């Protein structure tokens, strides 16, 4: 009769496993230990911080920005206001068909070069008791944002819908620089006055037919989101951050949609 004998775990293997576990545990706390040793009253050290930041400009004014804080403590400096706040004068009503200046551009407010893109959404809402409800029956195409510098801002056709457009700036944006504008004017098409609904009611033996505007009292919305990503390893960074495959020329850093 054969007796099977289980081989004992060699001491060397056991030691290696213990060493591996120790390595794994200590690998995550190494940076914390390093930080502790930096603090000294005798020695000083200089660390260059690389901060990314992006600012959206409307008619030459800053309307929103989000910059990584100079303290590099994980906090962001950010501020957002409202688009179109100065489109009309006090008490003035929107004129259908009129092209209002809406010059939008992006500024690099960080400390590293970056690639930028903008997500633009247009839609209608009904506001009742202070609560907004998106109105999908009304056409976003009647909110017309006239684009500008379309040789430098390329629209992504794969992301385009009647409500949304995504524009990619084809050049790397250096620190402190502002892109050329991607829009010129905003117009609410006069066609909104052609959409009417007829209702017929009977009152006091009479049949009364009334025609009302579908767009009367609704509000339009324009959303703009500016995105920025580092230029280093840009193709990988962009697919990772934005989910879009692009080609970046290694010589002139021109970006093209794949």
């Amino acid at each position: 009769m054969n007796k099977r004998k289980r081989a004992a775990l060699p001491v060397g293997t056991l030691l290696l496993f213990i060493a591996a576990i120790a390595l794994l545990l200590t690998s995550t706390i190494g940076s914390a230990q390093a930080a502790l040793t930096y603090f000294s009253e005798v020695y000083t050290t200089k660390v260059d911080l690389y901060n990314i930041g992006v600012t959206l400009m409307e008619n030459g004014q800053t309307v929103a920005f989000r910059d990584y804080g100079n303290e590099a403590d994980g906090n962001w400096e950010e501020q957002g206001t409202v688009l179109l706040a100065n489109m009309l004068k006090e008490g003035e009503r929107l004129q259908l068909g009129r092209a209002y200046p809406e010059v939008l551009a992006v500024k690099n407010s960080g400390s590293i070069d970056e690639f930028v893109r903008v997500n633009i959404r247009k839609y209608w809402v009904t506001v009742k008791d202070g609560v907004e409800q998106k109105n999908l029956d009304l056409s976003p195409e009647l909110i017309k944002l006239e684009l500008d510098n379309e040789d430098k801002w390329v629209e992504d056709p794969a992301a385009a819908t009647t409500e949304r457009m995504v524009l990619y700036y084809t050049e790397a944006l250096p620190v402190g620089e502002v892109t050329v504008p991607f829009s010129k004017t905003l117009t609410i098409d006069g066609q909104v006055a052609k959409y009417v609904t007829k209702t017929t009611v009977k009152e006091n033996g009479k049949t009364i037919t009334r025609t009302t505007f579908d767009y009367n009292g609704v509000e339009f919305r324009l959303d703009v989101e500016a995105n920025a990503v580092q230029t280093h390893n840009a193709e990988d960074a962009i697919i990772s951050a934005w989910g879009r495959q692009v080609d970046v020329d290694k010589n002139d850093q021109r970006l093209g949609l794949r």
Partner: protein
Amino acid sequence: MKKASVCAALLAAVMAAFASLPAAWGYFTTYTQVRGGLPIYLGHETEIHEEVSDMTKHLTIENQEDSSVVFVRARGFSDSAHPLTYTCEVEGDWKEGDDGFWYYQKPLAPGETTSTLHVKIDLPAGEPEEGDNFNVVVVYESTLALYDAQGNPYADWSMILDTYEEGA
């Protein structure tokens, strides 16, 4: 050292190396978002005022305070025996169109009233006799003012709001 030990050591080394990689795989990114919008007012309400004297109707049209800017037009209807003659209180304010309507040339802001359009009822030769019966109806319409890209107003008379009644 046995083969199993070597493999275990390599595995441990690879795991230790990869444990610190996720931070290196992160990219510098940021975003900022802003939005805005405005309400659309399309409603408008106008009212016609008529005074009659000396066989003439004196018409003005008033745009209500809370209304939008509009353009207005008016015309009279009568039988063939009583033709109508139009004159303006202010020269050039009203102009006759090809369709028989008289068009007020300026956009009418909320609360504004047009200058007067006089509609004279011409009688057949001689003074009206007792029992003469005729009817003159004035129709007026308004349309929302539209604008070109530069903000110059114009009227599109294919867009008229209807409210009408049928029955007793």
